[in-house]
């Protein structure tokens, strides 16, 4: 069976879009929770609870980024080479943020002096925010076009990326992930932290919606070949954002799951808009349209694309299956009461009953 080369190239473009979007949806709330570490949680027990909402998953979520990077290298090596060498210093900052963030989660609880924990909490807040911002800046610039010469080399600097449209993209993802994280927390927690997270979502979601809609309008205005589909997706994304904002302001507490779905939809649709706008380019050149990087002039051979398509077809369902199962195991809401043990004396504990009283949730594997 011979599959058309251009079909494979389009398929891989879609798969890479799916990987990036998967990363933004999943790691998006991790970024949000990281940013809110000192705002939503005020005590050690509360911060521990917050960490436990994402603790089992954040590392797996980050693998979506590694897979997106690896898949880009395998399927579109010329795109990978131009993007990663071109966005050099921006990418360096992303890497620093991701490194600091990763170890901050792991090291936070390894010592209990207050300065240690405060330090890592600020590391989480700043690194999560920085990463959330930079991913938006990078993608806005990819869509907008950056200076690329005939040798497919990026000829700009870090400051080329810091244009108003790029920065708006960054602010949009920053706010969107902040709101996504706050809504995630209202879905995954109980008690005081839940109420604080709702408070944040009420402010962050409308702000994200406003930034997102301005960004979308600007994106549509910038579009060179404005077809019905591209505009329709952008409009859908805008509607999603508005719904999200309405939802967050009005009845978040009762319907956290609906709000989270809307928040997910807003992120998905925003990036679908960008990817639909981008195709068949992968990195348009602002120097000369003839130097545009496209799926056709950056892709691997037919054989490599076919091979990787088979690997993806086998592995992606398996990965999704066990990832979903892990989320299912950790579906129970997290309450800071579970972690405040050290602050209670034994008599309080006896009065209040066992902290881990059996609940209705059954052990899924037992």
């Amino acid at each position, binding site marked *: 069976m011979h599959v058309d080369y251009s079909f494979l190239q389009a398929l891989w473009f879609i798969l890479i879009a799916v990987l990036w979007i998967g990363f933004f949806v999943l790691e998006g709330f991790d970024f949000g929770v990281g940013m809110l570490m000192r705002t939503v949680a005020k005590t050690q027990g509360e911060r*521990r609870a917050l960490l436990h909402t994402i603790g089992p998953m954040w590392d797996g979520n980050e693998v979506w980024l590694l897979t997106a990077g690896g898949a880009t290298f*395998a399927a579109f090596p010329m795109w990978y*080479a131009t993007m990663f060498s071109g966005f050099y210093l921006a990418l360096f900052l992303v890497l620093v943020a991701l490194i600091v963030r*990763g170890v901050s989660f792991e090291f936070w609880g390894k010592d209990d002096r207050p300065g240690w924990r405060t330090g890592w909490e600020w590391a989480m807040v700043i690194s999560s925010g920085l990463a959330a911002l930079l991913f938006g800046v990078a993608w806005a610039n990819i869509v907008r076009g950056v200076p690329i010469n005939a040798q497919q080399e990026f*000829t700009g600097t870090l400051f080329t990326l810091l244009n108003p449209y790029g920065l708006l993209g960054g602010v949009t993802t920053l706010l969107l992930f902040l709101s996504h994280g706050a809504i995630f927390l209202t879905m995954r927690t109980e008690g005081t932290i839940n109420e604080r997270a709702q408070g944040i979502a009420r402010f962050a979601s409308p702000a994200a919606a406003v930034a997102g809609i301005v960004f979308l309008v600007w994106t549509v205005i910038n579009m060179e070949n404005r077809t019905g589909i591209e505009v329709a997706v952008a409009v859908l994304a805008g509607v999603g954002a508005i719904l999200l904002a309405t939802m967050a302001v009005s009845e978040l507490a009762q319907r956290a799951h609906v709000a989270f779905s809307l928040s997910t939809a807003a992120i998905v649709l925003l990036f679908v808009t960008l990817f639909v706008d981008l195709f068949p380019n992968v990195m348009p050149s602002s120097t000369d349209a003839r130097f545009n990087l496209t799926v056709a002039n950056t892709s691997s051979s037919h054989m*490599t694309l076919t091979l990787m398509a088979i690997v993806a077809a086998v592995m992606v369902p398996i990965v999704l299956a066990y990832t979903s199962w892990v989320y299912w195991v950790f579906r129970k809401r997290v309450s800071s009461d579970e972690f405040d043990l050290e602050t209670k004396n034994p008599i309080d504990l006896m009065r209040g009953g066992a902290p881990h009283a059996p*609940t209705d949730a059954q052990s899924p*594997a*037992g």
Partner: protein
Amino acid sequence: MTALDLARLQFATTTIFHFFFVPLSIGLAFYVAVCQTLHYRTGKEVYARQVNFFGKLMLISFAVGVVTGIIQEFQFGMNWSQYSRFVGDIFGAPLAMEALIAFFLESTFLGFWIFAKGRVSPKTHLVSIWLVSIGSALSAFFIIAANSWMQHPVGYKMVNGKPQLDSIWAVVTNNTAIAAYLHVIFAAALTGTFVVIGVAAFQIRRGHEVELFTRAVKVAIPILTVGVIGGFLAGDQLALLLVKQQPMKMSAAEALFESEAPAAFSLFATGDLTRDPGQTNRNLKIPHMLSLLATRSWDGKVTGINELERRDIAKYGPGQYVPYVAVIYWSFRVMVYTWGLMLLFALLTWWMARKGRLAESRHWQTFAMVMAVSPFLVNTAGWVMTEVGRQPWIVQGLMQTKDANSPLVSTAQVASTLIGFTLIFTVIGGIALWLFLRYVSKGAEPQATGKPDATDVPDLTLAY
């Protein structure tokens, strides 16, 4: 220094640092999985306490290994864009497979293992640590397959001056990849066990939980034995392949400038420390030994650097084809001599354990503590020999390193990321080491009263 030199320095720095933690994580994950299996089978508390104690050390290692691994995947594009364009059709595939097949498995189930203890059945929890162990060992395979393709390119055809994938089967069954993978996996097992034994010896020496840690050494002994022997056998196979595939690297590892038949194995050589001094004084030698190792015959000829250089010039045109001989010679010596010490230590440990003297012999305890450093030494030396020995090539025979870096990334840019990464690595590495030593000095937690069965109560011994 040029941008190219700095990019090379950056690759060396980030890779060596990353590879302190990778084999440690793989080795400790395997050791912890073994202990947890023993606990599951026997129900003995002593194994569960080992899981908790060494599990925490493993998590510190994983934390640093995982975050520094992100750089590994991205710096090919950042610093080596010409290389990425040239090899992408073949080299990208194993990296993508590594993420899809191994990283997801390892990361997802590591998080699961940390947080699901007590929430799921002991059996499910046991399966999860094995999935972590398998995932981490699998990831090593894909990256070694990718690296081995740079050492010994196979399964490709040249199309428009670039290698294009012809057979993925040839790439993943590359004989270099299989020998190198086994060598690395045995080294990883050794890294885990030497650290376990070193830490255990420290605890025994200060009289902390002597029984628990004596048991830890006994669990480690079979892994140590297999690792020391397996590591040698795989390394020997790899050297045999090198003689055919990268003779320059092997001759440089022997500082053998003039061809010899029969060839002697050099124990100690002196000479000019410039890149290519043209000759050395191979003072201490074992006659016939190199012929035996390299050709499996008593009098076999081993081609020297000078002859190989003439051949390369004839084949590839004028140029510089000799790598930094002293660096390769001494990194190979570090590996071989340290391996000798490891073998000695393994025999001694086996003997001491048999005689029941682990707890009394302070000499053995000191030896064990010192030897905890040894795997890091050989791991680093191994990569230095592998990568420096391939120079001037980035892909043996196909592309030179000088043509591979990102042409428009300036010296200042590479310098700033090099300084940035080095600073961060120093800080994070320092903190990780400090945490590691602190956990070690804190010792094992008192015997738990824990319930062995799954309950809905999460057990947060390992979580943060």
